[in-house]
């Protein structure tokens, strides 16, 4: 076993590892990268039904309705456009009207966002970053608005 041979084996093994990893990453990226969309972007882009998305914004005041079969319907807004959302299951404890929310799910053929997961932040004064950005994009961001961050020491 010469040094050259050994190096060749190690390089070959590294290449194999790298190749397999790249293939795995590309495969996984294809169906597990999720794009974040604000309600305005959804209104503009009209994403194909069935595509996985993350929707973020504020839960519109007085939009939460309990439907049959433990389904909750509500609207998510960036104070510019709104998207109708349904979610089957128990919403997180911090889910409130007027608060920031991020929902993971797909658009259905009727233009309703069917959420498979709803995230509300643990900290009530904390605004999910994407939601703040979405509000900025929609031009409705106010520095003193609901996103008031914790005052820094």
């Amino acid at each position, binding site marked *: 076993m010469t040094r050259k041979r050994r190096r060749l084996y190690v390089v070959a093994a590294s290449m194999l*590892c790298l190749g397999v990893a790249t293939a795995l*990453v590309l495969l996984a990226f294809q169906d597990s990268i999720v794009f974040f969309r604000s309600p305005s972007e959804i209104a503009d882009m009209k994403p194909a039904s069935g595509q996985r998305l993350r929707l973020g914004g504020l839960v519109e005041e007085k939009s939460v309705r309990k439907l049959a079969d433990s389904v909750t319907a509500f609207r998510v807004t960036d104070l510019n456009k709104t998207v109708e959302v349904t979610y089957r299951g128990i919403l997180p404890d*911090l889910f409130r009207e007027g608060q920031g929310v991020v929902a993971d799910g797909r658009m259905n053929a009727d233009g309703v966002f069917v959420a498979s997961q709803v995230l509300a932040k643990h900290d009530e004064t904390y605004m999910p970053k994407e939601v703040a950005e979405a509000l900025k994009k929609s031009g409705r961001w106010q520095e003193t608005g609901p996103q008031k961050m914790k005052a820094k020491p």
Partner: protein
Amino acid sequence: MIAELGHFALILALVAALVQGSVPMIGASRNDRAWMAVARPAALGQAGAVALAFFALMWCHIASDFSVMAVAANSNSQMPLIYKISSTWGYHEGSMVLWVLILAIYGAAVALFGDNLPPALRARVLAVQAWIAIGFLLFILFTSNPFLRMTPAPADGRDLNPLLQDPGLAIHPPFLYFGYVGFSMAFSFAIAALIEGRVDAAWARWVRPWTLLAWCFLTAGIAMGSYWAYYELGWGGWWFWDPVENASFMPWLIGTALLHSASVVEKRDALKSWTILLAIIAFSLSLMGTFLVRSGVLTSVHAFATDPARGVFILGLLAITTGGALVLYVWRAPGMGTGGLFAPVSREGALVLNNLLLATACATVFLGTLYPLFLDALGGDKVSVGAPFFNATFAPIMAPLVAAMAVGPLLAWKRGDLFGALQRLYAALAIAIVVGLATLYLTRGGPVLAAFGMALAAWLFFGTLSELAERLRLFRVPLSDSIQRAAILPRAAYGMLIAHAGMAFTVAGVTATSAWETESISSMRPGDRAALAGNEFVLLDVRQDLQGPNYTAEQAGISVLRNGKEIAVLEPAKRFYPVQRQATNETAILTTGFSDVYAALGDGNPQSGWTVRLYYKPLVTWIWLGAALMVAGGAVSLSDRRHRVGAPSRGQPRTRPRASAAPAAASDD
């Protein structure tokens, strides 16, 4: 006064670090012993000063001195003492002081116990440690000073984040930091070796115990954090692939690789420059973890602190440290020379495979964690890379690693006999197949991949047992001989076997929980019943308005019935902390065998009922049992005389004569 004293002590520490970083380094290059000897008192002085600062800060917390801004923002007079103490490191500024304290403790340990290190190497290692300390002390003093006062002082503090008010999380950060910062030792040794232009077996024998110590702390810290997420967040999850979790996991992966490659340097004098590179990467990833957590660049449940100025400073620090180290590496490493030769099928070959797979796994985690950040920074789309990505990439890379873990230790150094090794594993293979088939049968064809995972875990566990039997010549020589062999088997070998067995438990626990957990989420009123995994649950009552020291709580009583008999009453609670207006979950967990029944109480009221989340988690405790075994294995290995800090000396022969003998006799770890 105490706060000012702490502030002053930090400045003092900076001065000591400046001396420690310059004089010994110059002394080492001029071979001036007196200058090199400055390193020791400087390191001890720096550690003393940082400790003084840290305890001054802790005193402010215990005494609830709300004129100190950081205390006012993160503590409260109503908090129990333990959280007043742990609130010292429960926020950005305080945790950075803890970071520097631990760095100084490691430096002081080298100064105190490094007597038999060559003086030049010791001086250089301590100087490099001081450079890191200078960076972080400047960072604290300029961007995150915890000792700033505010006037007028508020009447009471704003309280510690309630999620952190938990015994598990009170001790989690120190463990994690002892792990993170512990890699600074490997880093400093690597830089010192690059400056010296010399790496030999003795160098690896000094680096290994430090790496092993850091690795044990990091493993324990990660396991604790995962257990905390499991019972405190109330979702029954134990790993979320959250960026901050990944930030601690990446140094762990590379640290594990480093641990294994350092043993090749030690035993065979090969893979030297690769080991140095791993040491640099492991510490850089630790720094990056600090950056990710502390800059708040990622949307994450953990990102408590958000301040871009700090982020830029740490990023600069990261760039200088990593960039500088890599430049030095490129310049000096080629001169290190390559060591002993080995065939692809050999112990070294197996360890190279281990390193390749761990590094690849780390690279995919790195990509998944930072891709959204890069894309965002380049002005692209906002994306999120979630658990599905990590599961799809990480598991396929880890599977061959686990499979190889059973075989590697049976191969001889230099040139191994793969066929012979596999022959010794026939029993493990048979058991693995039986376990796989039995799993398929019992779960009625339940996911094939899960059955494969269980078989893999069995393969590793029984492969490790076979390895032990092989070393003891069990059933081949009289029992008394085997016992004698057991007595003289090095502790490092036991440590490796225990840690590998721990990995088997973790793999089994992860597989079983992911594949066969069941849940029931429903709205319940007192008297309502729910069924899950052969248990019946009755909501007895929900007591409202319970008073804690600094919170109010609702607590449910849930009777668990098995075959109609009550076996336990679970009492999950929900706390509300008025100061921070935040709610936390106090879940109730019933462990039977190795599986958990888990209950969490959600929102509700007497009219419409409460949300009750019930989970059945088969074998979930094995995840942490496995981690505990890994830590225990590390500790046992650390107690090996050969690894004892400072034990080795440079006079020893580079290659041990036993190295080329028969596998079982030659392999002592």
